[in-house]
């Protein structure tokens, strides 16, 4: 009789202990079930890797059609603005955040003992795979993560590369900002068969490219996001400059929504596919 009670004692103690142990200890033993994402890029990866029932909250941008590539999937999931008090209210067993965003909230959550996984904005395609792997491991779906990365890489590899000279393109953002070398956008351009003019002009990362400089050494195609509904700002009106419209009429312009190139994930393949298609159309027009 004592042996049987003793046999029950250990599991009971373990069960009791699991209630008293901090949440992080719990996450190590099972897949996270109440995941909170603070950042749009982690929102998107999360929605591609796990089912909605395991997601407690995504960032408020996830349902903004201008920024989010997963608007439909995110509908109905409680949004958050990245404030620690808010997050605690969801009682998460995993928090996904961007390394450089919501710093104070993330530090607070760490101090309170929550499991936080931080990712960087990927700067090339290898980083995209690493990032997917990191998030997949955190949510307990390494296999699905590998599959996702494979799918993205397969789609990119399937894009045709130009036989002869590679055409140039530049991504032009509000206020004249461009993506130069060492950026994910740069990698996407090259995967689509373009050379990045901004990189050739010496731009690194995300920096301003003057209008006159761009016009003096123009790319073959200009990638611009014309899709924003509310364009009431000096920054966005900049892209309507008559000189830009004259130099890059419809045939030399590619409209790609910027939400496709700001995060790593399936959106990367979407963007590259759009760019590649535009490149091929241009080639066929010139023949």
């Amino acid at each position, binding site marked *: 009789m004592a042996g049987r009670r003793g046999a029950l004692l250990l599991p009971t103690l373990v069960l009791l202990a699991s209630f008293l142990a901090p949440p992080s200890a719990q996450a190590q033993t099972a897949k996270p079930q109440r995941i909170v994402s603070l950042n749009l890029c982690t929102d998107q990866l999360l929605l591609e890797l796990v089912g909605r029932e395991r997601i407690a909250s995504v960032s408020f941008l996830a349902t903004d059609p201008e920024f989010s590539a997963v608007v439909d999937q995110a509908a109905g999931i409680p949004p958050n603005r990245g404030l620690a008090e808010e997050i605690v209210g969801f009682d998460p067993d995993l928090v996904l955040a961007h390394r450089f965003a919501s710093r104070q909230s993330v530090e607070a959550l760490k101090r309170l003992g929550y499991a936080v996984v931080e990712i960087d904005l990927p700067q090339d395609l290898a980083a995209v795979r690493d990032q997917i792997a990191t998030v997949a491991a955190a949510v307990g779906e390494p296999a699905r993560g590998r599959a996702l990365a494979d799918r993205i890489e397969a789609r990119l590899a399937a894009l045709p590369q130009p036989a002869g000279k590679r055409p140039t393109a530049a991504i032009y953002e509000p206020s004249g900002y461009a993506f130069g070398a060492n950026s994910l956008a740069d990698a996407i351009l090259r995967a689509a068969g373009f050379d990045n003019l901004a990189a050739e002009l010496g731009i690194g990362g995300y920096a301003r490219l003057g*209008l006159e400089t761009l016009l003096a050494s123009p790319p073959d195609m200009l990638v611009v996001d014309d899709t924003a509904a509310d364009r*009431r*700002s*000096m920054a*966005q009106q900049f892209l309507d400059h008559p*000189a830009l419209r004259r130099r890059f009429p419809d045939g030399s312009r590619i409209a790609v929504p910027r939400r496709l190139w700001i995060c790593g994930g399936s959106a990367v393949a979407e963007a590259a596919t759009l760019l590649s298609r535009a490149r091929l159309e241009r080639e066929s027009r010139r023949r």
Partner: protein
Amino acid sequence: MRALVLLWSLTGVLALLSLCMGPTGFAPGIVAQALDGEATGRLILFELRLPRALLALLVGGTLGLAGATLQGLFRNPLAEPGIIGVSGCAALGAVIAFYSGLSASIPLGLPLGGVLGALLAIALLLALAARDARISTLLLAGVALSALAGALTALALNLSPNPYATVEVVFWLLGSLSDRSMEHVLLALPFMVVGSALMLFCGRGLEALTLGEDTATSLGVSIRRLRSLAVIGAALAVGAGVAVTGAIGFVGLIVPHLLRPLVGHRPAPLLWLSIPGGAALTLAADIAVRLIGGAVELRLGVATALIGAPFFLWLVLRLSRRAA
């Protein structure tokens, strides 16, 4: 008048120099290319550099003229659109028109917003000057009005749902001529032309005003008409200018002051001279901004403030010493 010819010639030279300025400094090559008929050169010269030079000329000229007009009207050498809050209120009007979307639905809505803001400011200041015409009161009211307009502008931008709006307060409060287009020039041009014409018609009235309102009235000048001409003219010109370039200060202060001795301190000739004076000063400042700037472009309003604010202080000290 010889000074007039000289100043317009200087303005012409500076305008040509401005056309030769590229993003990294002196770059006349583009002009040569354009004259050769080369497409890129023509595009850059006519769609980028020319609007910039034209705006510097137009905005600078109208600011100089407005400064001379307002100084004549208020009989106060320290009055100018920036200091007395007219430019700030014009910026507020333009911001409200633009970020609310009104300017997209109403043709010429953007410069109209600036004009209405400027009108409100001048009307307020005139009402105040009627009750208390002291220089100090006018300037203090101007400071208050400027501060209020600046705060409301920042608020309006913060309230805008657009993610870029908040940062753009820098453009509106400090002014810039970069990346403007011929569309901007054409948007502001009719207002500036009409406004300038109205202000130039004030010449006689401002001369008569030299001896005070009673003497001016006895000389056949309608003070009400003079005020309306000056106020509406200045509001039209300054309002439209601010709407396309943001608030550029101190030009209307420095130019009339420097030129006044050349015309025997007479208000009417000063009006005509302040146009090329303001144009030349603004062109020179815009050229300097591009020469000095380098990678980060210095805002034009910063440049004019760096020259203008110490000048203003010196002027205030000199006037107070003279009064003492």
